[in-house]
């Protein structure tokens, strides 16, 4: 089933967030039960049987036959949860497993005996434990099947879910309007089951199966004791198996040097142009100031090898912000000539706020990175601070998102800036990607391990940094032109 698009999400003004289509329709229902953590443990026995056979068709055939008979005798097992079976009196358990064993060899679910041991489940353990399926072998099988059943949307998980739907359907518990494309649900499910490989037609039914499992979840309360016990046992049986990315710099030193040398010459050109031709041009100063700030941050990537580091992402974000601001100021200056000065004093006002905060609270900053004396000089550089306002909002009282839309750079904002903002603000997505290592052990519910050894190295920011730098330089060229020599060098470098 393809994932929904962002435009399909529904904005909830009260929550100030875009709800996924599923959450918007189902509210909290869809979140009540998580497939892997809360449902899979109950149906792992089905997964083991499916995994036992090479033929999907045969596995489903045997199991549906068994379940038909079981549910005929034990209607409570219309939802064939393991916790329900194990909670049955021993004689009923015996009957259920007798029926099951008419169709499926007991070895198929033997691996479960390392979880449901004799002390707690004596009947189950004594019936299914075998010498062949020792702890080691059983653990390996359990791990393999749990991995296969991890993603709810996988074929394997859907096949497990099929049995939940199937038992409901054959017992007449599912009623659908005739015009919804499922004229006879049992026939459709039989057709779905009767194949070793899935074709497009059968995949259509998968959506229905998963949807039904999600919606039916609310009718059954979790057996939390069973679940807690399952995860406690499985997690202690398996070791953490960490997996981390170790991306490396994806560009040669020579290419970096070539590009860095070219953009340095470009910036030197504009620096000289400003100094020599337009030394009093405020527009030039502000645009070049923003561009050079971006350039200095760009250089940090190279000089401090931040290609794969968190800081590299912060740099991309600020480079984008500088570029967006350059475009915005240019646009705004057409209607308001004073915008260049306003932009400068907006920033100076922010510094004044820091300065005042320090002065009024007498905070000691002797060993701090904040250079108060210099701040004082900057704040009072062109105007006495008494005439400098402190603006607490973003420049021009406009959000960065609106600003990006105004300068027709929405994608730069919604894709790159948004992503990099997660790193700047320490949001969980960024923490997860950069500072947490994935544990591949399903029994550990794929938990994350904090990356204290600093092993994880993310994808390089080089090409995105170059992309934003090129846009920034492009803007300067559009405004001020460039020499033929630099133009030609840019062309030779594919810019």
């Amino acid at each position, binding site marked *: 089933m393809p994932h929904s698009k962002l435009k399909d999400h529904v904005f909830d003004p009260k929550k100030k967030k875009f709800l996924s289509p599923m959450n918007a329709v189902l509210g909290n229902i869809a979140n009540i039960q998580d497939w892997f953590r809360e449902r899979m443990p109950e149906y792992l026995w089905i997964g083991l049987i499916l995994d036992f056979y090479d033929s999907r068709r045969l596995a489903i055939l045997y199991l549906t036959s068994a379940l038909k008979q079981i549910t005929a005798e034990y209607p409570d097992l219309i939802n064939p949860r393991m916790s329900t079976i194990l909670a049955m009196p021993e004689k009923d358990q015996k009957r259920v497993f007798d029926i099951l064993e008419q169709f499926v060899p007991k070895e198929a679910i033997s691996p479960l005996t390392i979880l449901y041991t004799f002390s707690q489940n004596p009947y189950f353990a004594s019936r299914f434990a075998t010498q062949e399926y020792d702890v080691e072998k059983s653990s390996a099988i359990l791990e393999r099947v749990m991995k296969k059943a991890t993603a709810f949307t996988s074929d394997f998980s859907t096949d497990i879910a099929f049995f939940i739907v199937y038992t409901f359907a054959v017992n007449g518990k599912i009623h659908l309007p005739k015009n919804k494309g499922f004229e006879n649900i049992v026939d459709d499910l039989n057709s779905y089951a009767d194949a070793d490989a899935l074709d497009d037609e059968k995949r259509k039914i998968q959506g229905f199966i998963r949807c039904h499992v999600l919606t039916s979840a609310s009718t059954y309360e979790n057996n939390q004791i069973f679940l807690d016990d399952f995860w406690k046992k499985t997690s202690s049986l398996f070791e953490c198996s960490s997996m981390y990315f170790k991306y490396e710099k994806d560009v040669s030193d020579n290419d970096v040097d070539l590009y860095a040398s070219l953009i340095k010459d470009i910036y030197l*050109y504009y620096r*000289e*142009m400003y100094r*020599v*031709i*337009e030394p009093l041009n405020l527009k030039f100063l502000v645009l070049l100031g923003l561009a050079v700030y971006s350039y200095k941050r760009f250089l940090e990537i190279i000089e401090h090898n931040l290609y794969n580091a968190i800081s590299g992402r912060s740099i991309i974000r600020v480079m984008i912000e500088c570029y967006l601001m350059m475009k915005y100021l240019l646009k705004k200056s057409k209607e308001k000539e004073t915008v260049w000065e306003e932009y400068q004093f907006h920033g100076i006002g922010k510094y004044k706020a820091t300065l005042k905060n320090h002065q009024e609270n007498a905070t000691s900053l002797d060993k701090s990175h904040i250079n108060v004396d210099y701040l004082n000089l900057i704040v009072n550089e062109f105007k006495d601070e008494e005439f400098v306002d402190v603006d607490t909002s973003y420049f021009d009282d406009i959000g960065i998102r609106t600003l990006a839309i105004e300068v027709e750079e929405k994608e730069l904002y919604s894709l790159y800036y948004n992503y990099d903002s997660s790193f700047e603000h320490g949001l969980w997505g960024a923490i997860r990607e950069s500072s947490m290592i994935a544990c591949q052990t399903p029994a550990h519910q794929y938990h994350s391990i904090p990356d204290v050894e600093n092993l994880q190295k993310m994808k390089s920011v080089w090409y995105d940094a170059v992309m934003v730098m090129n846009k920034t330089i492009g803007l300067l*060229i*559009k*405004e*001020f*032109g*460039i*020499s*033929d*020599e*630099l133009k*030609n060098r840019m062309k030779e470098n594919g810019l």
Partner: protein
Amino acid sequence: MGYNLLIESMKKIQQEYLILLRKYESFDVEEVYSIQNECQIFWLRHKREIDFFINNYPYEFDTCVFIGGMYLNVASKSLYPFLTFGKKHLVDDPVALLSTNGSKEYFAEYLKLAIEDNIDIIQNHGDQVLILPLSYLFVDKELCEIGAKNSFWHLFPEEGMNEDEYGCRFHSLDEVIECIGEERGRCLFLKYEKTTLKERYLEHLDLMGFSVLDGKDGVMQFYGMCMGLFLQTMVVMTFCTHYWVFPFIRDHSLFGCFCLLMKNMLKQKKFAKLKTSLNKAVMLKLFYGLFVYEELENLDDYLKMLNDSNFETMVFDRMQEENVECSESGSFAKVNTILIEEMHKRNIPCVV
């Protein structure tokens, strides 16, 4: 092409210069030096901008510079040959540099003509040509003087010739010319159709309005005249090689000396890239000799025809295809042939 502050800043300066020049369309002879002074001060005030400009405007010999001459003389249609080659065109401001050994009246007359020419260029051809004080501000005079002296001493067969030796050894013009010899003096005073060096020299003096001096004075007069020529050559060479441009040289003697010194320079591998400057200078000079532009009436039509028919590119490509290097002997004849053929193809008026 979009806005380019580099060019626009120069155009702005040209307009400011035009306002200044217009004030001096007519002046008294007595004011001549103060006028030149003011023009020089005008350029000095803009030195940094122009320095930035000439360091960034020319690119890989795409710029043709009129330098080492007096003034361009636009009224005599000199823009036709000047604009034929090169993508960009600069004129060394004669007003800033003019100097003459003659009278104040002679200087005033020359300055007036140079100012007129400058006004014509800025007013009517400002999009195609920029006037800048190139040799006044951006050529190392001391270096040129050293180069000019060395060039002069190298005319003599013996090594170690210098001012003292020259002053002591020679007592008459004839002794100097005999020592140099016809072969070594071949590049001197070339514009006169006379066979011997002495004949050419005397005609040059005559044209300049000087009479030949006797004895030691004549020896020093010859030195002075040759030094003037070599100084001009050094100015053209140093500017063109420093900024990677090529010159529009009309004067035969200057051209001869330029070619001679450039060829010597290009013998060193490290200067190999500069051969384009020589190739293009030769191409333009030879074209200038062949081109009958005085009959042409519409500059824009002429330039459009050149552009549409890729005249410059075709000539230059053919030179490359036929491996014509102007630093090698026999190359001028090949360039002439190519030029004549390409000119005929386009019906460009040609003396042949």
